[in-house]
Structure formats: structure tokens, C-alpha cells
């Protein structure tokens, strides 16, 4: 009888923890099953590196549009191309959403320039890693960030395969993530191209619907045999990005990571996310079983001690 009571008490406890756990786990379960391939009519930008002359006009336009602090060196100072920190060329920072870098590619006439900013992924790693849902992929294609809810864990910086988000480390009271928002609130939302695209004197960048840009890119590659590498960087990389690139030199030579693969970042995490509901459902039963087994042995021992053989036969 005592045994039965114990068991009942135990099951109650197990049930309670199971309920608690499943309440906590519902959101994750839903996520593991859904996959998002990007909005059908989202906008994008096709960057043709072969046209870029490294004038940094786009950097200046971005700085003005986003009301960023004055740069350390003026935008017509080309010595920034020689800046090397930790063996790396310039990157996005809390002072700039976009940078142009110069690459000297062996066997290529003159330097190659590469503009760099947030690529606005179809399935952004930053978005999927954020535990306060600060990031949104808008139907227009921009990945925007809400600084009002950001706690400052900086997991998005870990999760971004392109090393884009920067953090306002200098601010003690309101440090936030800074990154390109494709001029979403001032331009994109009204159908206008981002400031950098419009400012470019060389028409390096083409603004349009992402699916049209992919067609355009492939056309350009075909119409100019031998000019371009036969690949649009960003068409498939990490699930596709809104910003895509054409290049006449191998992408790896101008600072692109060509080993990212086509899977969106969240796919690498799904393996764990599928474990979550399993643990939540299997563990309580499993350990309840262990407990009952352990208790049973004990109870058997006790009852053996308590009863004499003749009692048991009776």
C-alpha cells in the first residue's frame, strides 16, 4: 500500500515537471518544422565588382543617410585601403554600415574593389539566433533590427556568417547592434533604392526584384563570355541573400567566403532543436522508470527482510 502511494506521488511530480517542460518547449517545436525560402517579391541589389572604382561615394552616402558620426578619415582619403587590423581589411563597425576594400589580385590588371555591407539573407542567422526577436525580415527584403528590445547578448554577431553586425561598445547606457538596414525606413519601404545604390557614379549596383536580378546576373555572365566568373555570389549562399555579387576574379580572392555552403544558418541548429521535444517527452518517462526500478529493488529487499519464508508461502 505504501508502495502504491509513493508511486502515485511520484507520478504526480513527474507529470507536473512534464507539463512545465512542455509549456517551455512549444515554441521550439514549431520552429524545427517550418522553413522559409524568402519573400517572393522581395527586393535586392546586384553588385558588379568589375565596375567599382573604389571612390567610396557609397560610404559617404550611407554615412549621410543614416546620420552616422563623422568618419575618422574623410571619404576622399584613399589611404584607408591600406588599413590592416589583425591581418584583416576594414570591416563594418559602429561608425560605418558599409565599407569598400581594395584587393590586388595576381594576374589582374589593376586593383579590384569590393563593397561590403549586410547581405540581407533570406533566412538570416542573426534573426534565427535572437532570443528577443529583435530582427525582422521585411517582405521588401531588408533585415531590420529593433534596438528597443535588444539585451546585448551579441549572439547575432556570432551567428552572422558574413561578420556584419557591429556593436556600440563605446556606449555604457545604450549599446546596440549597428548594421545596414537597406535604408528600410527612409527609402526601401517607399520603393526607393538604398542611398548607396543611388549615389554610385559608376552604376555598380542594380536595384530590383531579387528574382529579376538573378536573371539579369546570369544574362550578363552569358552575354560577356570570359568576363565574369560563372557564379552569382548570394544567389544560393546560406539560403540566398538580397545583395548579390558578380565578379571578374575568383570570389575567394576578393574577401568572399566561398565555403559557406547553401544551407541557411538555422539548418545547422535544427539538429539540436529537434532533440528538444524528444528530451522533453522521453526524459520524464525514462527517469520515472529508473526511479521505480530502483525503488522496487529496495522494496523487495525490505519486504524480504520483513517477511519470513513461511509468510511468503501462505
Amino acid at each position, binding site marked *: 500500500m505504501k508502495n502504491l502511494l509513493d508511486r502515485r506521488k511520484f507520478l504526480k511530480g513527474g507529470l507536473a515537471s512534464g507539463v512545465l*517542460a512542455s509549456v517551455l518547449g512549444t515554441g521550439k517545436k514549431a520552429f524545427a518544422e517550418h522553413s522559409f525560402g524568402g519573400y517572393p517579391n522581395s527586393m535586392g541589389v546586384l553588385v558588379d565588382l568589375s565596375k567599382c572604382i573604389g571612390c567610396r561615394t557609397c560610404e559617404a552616402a550611407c554615412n549621410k543617410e543614416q546620420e552616422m558620426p563623422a568618419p575618422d578619415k574623410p571619404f576622399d582619403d584613399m589611404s584607408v585601403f591600406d588599413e590592416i587590423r*589583425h591581418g584583416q581589411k576594414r570591416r563594418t563597425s559602429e561608425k560605418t554600415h558599409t565599407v569598400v576594400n581594395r584587393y590586388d589580385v595576381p594576374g589582374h590588371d589593376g586593383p579590384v574593389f569590393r563593397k561590403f555591407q549586410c547581405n540581407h539573407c533570406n533566412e538570416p542567422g542573426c534573426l*534565427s539566433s535572437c*532570443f*528577443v526577436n529583435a530582427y525582422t525580415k521585411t517582405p521588401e527584403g531588408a533585415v531590420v533590427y529593433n534596438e528597443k528590445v535588444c*539585451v546585448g547578448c551579441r549572439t547575432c554577431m556570432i*551567428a552572422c556568417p558574413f561578420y556584419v553586425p557591429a556593436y556600440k561598445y563605446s*556606449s555604457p547606457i545604450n549599446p546596440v547592434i549597428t548594421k545596414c538596414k537597406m535604408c528600410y525606413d527612409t527609402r526601401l519601404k517607399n520603393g526607393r533604392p538604398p542611398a548607396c545604390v543611388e549615389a554610385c557614379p559608376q552604376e555598380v549596383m542594380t536595384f530590383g526584384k531579387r528574382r529579376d536580378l538573378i536573371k539579369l546576373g546570369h544574362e550578363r555572365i552569358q552575354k560577356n563570355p570570359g568576363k565574369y566568373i560563372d557564379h552569382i555570389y548570394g544567389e544560393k549562399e546560406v539560403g540566398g541573400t538580397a545583395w548579390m555579387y558578380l565578379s571578374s576574379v575568383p570570389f575567394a580572392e576578393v574577401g568572399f567566403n566561398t565555403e559557406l555552403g547553401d544551407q541557411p544558418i538555422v539548418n*545547422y541548429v535544427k539538429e539540436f532543436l529537434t532533440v528538444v521535444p524528444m528530451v522533453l517527452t522521453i526524459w520524464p518517462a525514462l527517469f520515472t522508470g529508473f526511479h521505480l526500478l530502483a525503488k522496487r529493488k529496495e522494496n523487495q529487499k525490505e519486504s524480504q527482510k520483513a517477511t519470513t519464508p513461511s509468510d511468503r508461502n501462505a
Partner: protein
Amino acid sequence: MKRFVAQGYDLPFINNTAISGGKKWTIKEKLLLGLTPSQYMDQFVRNPFNWLFTLIFMVGLPILAGRFYYGLGWATHGSYDYPWGLFLGWGLFVMVPLSASGFMLGTTVEVFGREDFKPIERLALLNGLLGYLFAVIFLQVDLGQPWRLIYPMFVSLGPAAVLFLVAWHVATYLSVQVAELLPAVAEWGNWPGMKKFVKSMILGLTISGIILSTLHQGALGALFTYAPGKVHPLWYSSPFQWFYFFCSSIFAGLSMLIVVSTLCKRFLSWRCDRRFLDNLDHQTMGLAKGAVLSLITYLVIKIIAIAHAENWAYLVTGWGGYYLLEICFGVLLPIVLYTKALRNNRPGLARFAALVTVLGIALNRINTALVAFNWNLYREIPHWREVIISITVYTLYIVTYRFILYRLPILYQIKAKP
């Protein structure tokens, strides 16, 4: 304190009894360990560790305050490429696995019914609670806006993120651990009602502790699955990362418990009762057995993961050499030491093995979070202020730990009747 005990001072509960000379201890006596304030200062000054701690606090606390006044950019390098530094690399990723002892021993005693581990259960629970608490404190030092810590709970929810799971589970598990330790507080303060209440749900608490621990220990590993290509392939595995972290937390927690109990025996023997001291060798060997089993499991899964991802070629590179060093020092060496200790029944050797294991797990977590992170970029040496703040917070952890061990019935029992 040893001196006071040797002189025959009547410290609270020193004879396992709640009553001294016919009357109960007052809260003040319990807090001051039955000493007068001047006697208390005496023992404080006499202990050389206190001098060291005071020095650390004098240097470290102003710098810690500076981190909040001047911002993270002042205290750290403010790196965009290494958003996580020592505060998380050490404070979260090392401290959490070392605090797995709570759920391990909770499971052993309450679920598996191994009552023989009861004398060390509370130390395991305390080690768990404080480890988590200070991991959260480290997190608070690292977060850009720590006052928004509750945002993922109530203000803006991102339930699909791994960190969301970590946040909820650590928060829930902290409360579970507080509840699990309430009996000790209840005995110390002589509030029997509280104890009875917790006892009635201890099993449910323990089971939810296992679930929460499995998931958040694993989730800490899964955080790095967001960074394929950034973490070196030998330290990275999309399918197995969570299991690396979960499985290694088992031997990390058990080994940390051996280390802590050894320190208690060595430095706090006056506070331990016979039940704790006499059982310690037996329990150390038991913990060692658990540790070596999980170490072997961990080693096997590491090898399987390399085969699974066909990462063999990396082993002959420089990174591979470093990886093998970590495995040899942090996994193989402990396995050999633990096995020898178990075979020849040498608790001393098991304690040494535990120390090596703890260092090994720290090495593994630091490697995953900092060294092998951005493996094809550059290494970043933490800023000196970051190092000092980390040491300061860790010292705070040690001091809190000691404060509680001095007082609550963790290493000793309080019996209602003498």
C-alpha cells in the same frame, strides 16, 4: 576557525545539535559563527586567503564598476569579430558544466535511490546553485544592457532561438536549485514548515532538474552551431555539439564536486562532521566511476563525430595537434588516472584526476568559445581589464561559496536532538 574549534569554542551546530546549553542559537550568533565581532575579525585577519581576496577586490571592484560606467568598450577590446570574450568564455561556458553536479547527485540520490551518496548531495546542490548564479552574474557583466535581462521572458520573445531556451532553462533551473537547497536553509534557521513543503515535491524538482539540465547544457553547445565555419571543424559538429557539451558536463560536474569536497576536507574540516569526512573516500570513488564512464562516452562520440564529418585530415594540421593535445590532457589522461585510481582504490589519485578533468573541461570550453573560434581569422588575447574583472567575479563566487559553507548545514547535519 580551526583554532577556535581546537580551543573548544561552542560554535553553532558544531556538535550536530540545534541546541547549546539549553537554548537555541540566535540568528546573529549563527551569522557570526558564535563568535564576538572582535573574535570574528581576528579569525578574518589571521586567514591569509582573506588578504589575497581583499587585494583582488581592492583592484577588481573599481574596474568592475568602471565596466558599467564607461561601457564594455573600456573593459574589453570591444571586438566585432569576437563578440564573446572571457566573461562568457569562462563565466558561462566553463562555470555551467562545472556546476552540473547538482542535477547529477540529485538524480543519483533522489531518482536512483542511492542513499549512500546523501552526505555529499547538498554540497553538489550548492555547487550547482552557486555555479549557475555566478554564471548569470558573469552574463550580466557581459550583456550590453543587463537591465533588460527579463526581456526574453516577458517583453519580446524569440522562442526559436537557442539562447531563449538557455535563458528560460537557466532561470527555471536556478529556482529549482534554490528550492532543492531550501531544506538546508530551513534547518539552519529552524523553520520546519519550509522543509516539509520542499520535501513533498523533491522528486518532481529533481526530474525537472534533469530535463532542464540536459537541455541547457546541450543548448550551450548548440549556441556554437550558429557559427559553422567560424568554429574550427574539429571543435564543431552540427549534430553532436549539444551532446559534446551535455556529456562532458557530466564528468565536469562530478569532477568539480570531487575537487570542491577535497578543498572542504583540507580547509574546512572544522565545519565537516564525521558523516561527511568518513564517507568522503567512498563517495569520491563513486563519483570517479561516474566520471570515467562519461569520459569514455565523450571520447567515443568525439571520434564518431570526426568520422561522421570526415575530419581526419584536420588532425595532421597544427590545429589538429592542438586538438589532440586537448583530448590527451583533458580526456585520455583523466581516463587513465581515474581508472588507475579505481583499480587500486586510491582516492588521492582520483582527486588528482578530478583536478585534471576540471582543467581539461575549462580548456575545451575556452578552446571552443575563443581559441578555435574564428580559426581562420586571428586570435584575440583578452584585455587586461577583462581578465581582472573575471578574476574578481570568480573571487566573489569563492567568497560566497565559503560564506555559505561556514554556516548552512551543507558539510554537516543538524539533528533535532543531541
